[in-house]
């Protein structure tokens, strides 16, 4: 299926959000995820099934004013 991850197109067979993060080498307790404009909590990722054309945002801390 086709996913948009942080604005870039990806083709993948992985359908669970937590598995997708591992496959893309995202790790750490400082990440936040949203799918189609809705927050997906850390503990919800292993049970969150992705669908074709989902838009995924993966954010982490950075400097801010």
């Amino acid at each position, binding site marked *: 299926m086709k996913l948009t991850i942080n604005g870039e197109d990806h083709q993948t067979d992985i359908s669970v959000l937590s598995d997708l993060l591992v496959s893309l080498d995202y790790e*750490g307790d400082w990440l936040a995820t949203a799918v189609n404009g809705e927050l997906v909590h850390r503990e919800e990722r292993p049970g969150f099934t992705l669908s074709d054309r989902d838009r995924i945002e993966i954010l*982490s801390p950075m400097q*801010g004013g």
Partner: protein
Amino acid sequence: MLTLYGTPVTSRLLLGTSRYPSPSILGDAIRRSKTEIVTVSLRRETAGGKTGGAFFELIRSLDVRVLPNTAGCHTAKEAVLTAKMAREVFATNWIKLEVIGNQDTLQPDVFALVEAAKILSEDGFEVFPYTTDDLVVAERLLDAGCKVLMPWCAPIGSAMGPVNLQALRSMRGHFPDIPLIVDAGIGRPSHAATVMELGFDAVLLNTAVAGASDPAAMAEAFAKAIDAGHMAYEAGMLEPRDMAVPSTPVIGKAVFA
């Protein structure tokens, strides 16, 4: 003592963490400012990237409270989602709510700001809204659940200093019991001292410190100016007069002619 959403705060300087020459200099500036609250943000992490983690570890090592922001958001919906993601990462209900309405001035979209503030307050957030000095907007933000207001004194990063002292004075007068933090537009320690002399409770700085030749020294200079301004406000200052008043008593003055 200043209390922000029930949290007592000793330092009246809140410091941004952006645009420093290096993480080490950022750390030095935070330590020398003696700030207890720093602002942070969220951005897209690249696959396999660890930059966010490294920054987060630095902040955690400095023993400060974080105030995540929603910088870069242009709609209430974006700001609300960003705030929720920030709560997930930083484990705090505090949020510096920014909804930008104009790209040139970075002026807040106060309509979307009030909308987002209401949604977030109802969801348990403790909202620090980046707003203008407009009193009616301030009232709406308080109605929306905000217990702190953060008016600009000039556009973000402009270093102009307070461009409308009367508006700030008026804001202080209208909201005597609400913590007021000047956020944005400060360029020099004297600017910070000026708004503190008006009775503002604290100042939030970033570019004025990060962009200095020696950010750590400038952080300390601002801390001293903020303390001086606050102490002067508490001590009660003279009002300007039109005529001269001799400081040396004239009673008992010798008469030579």
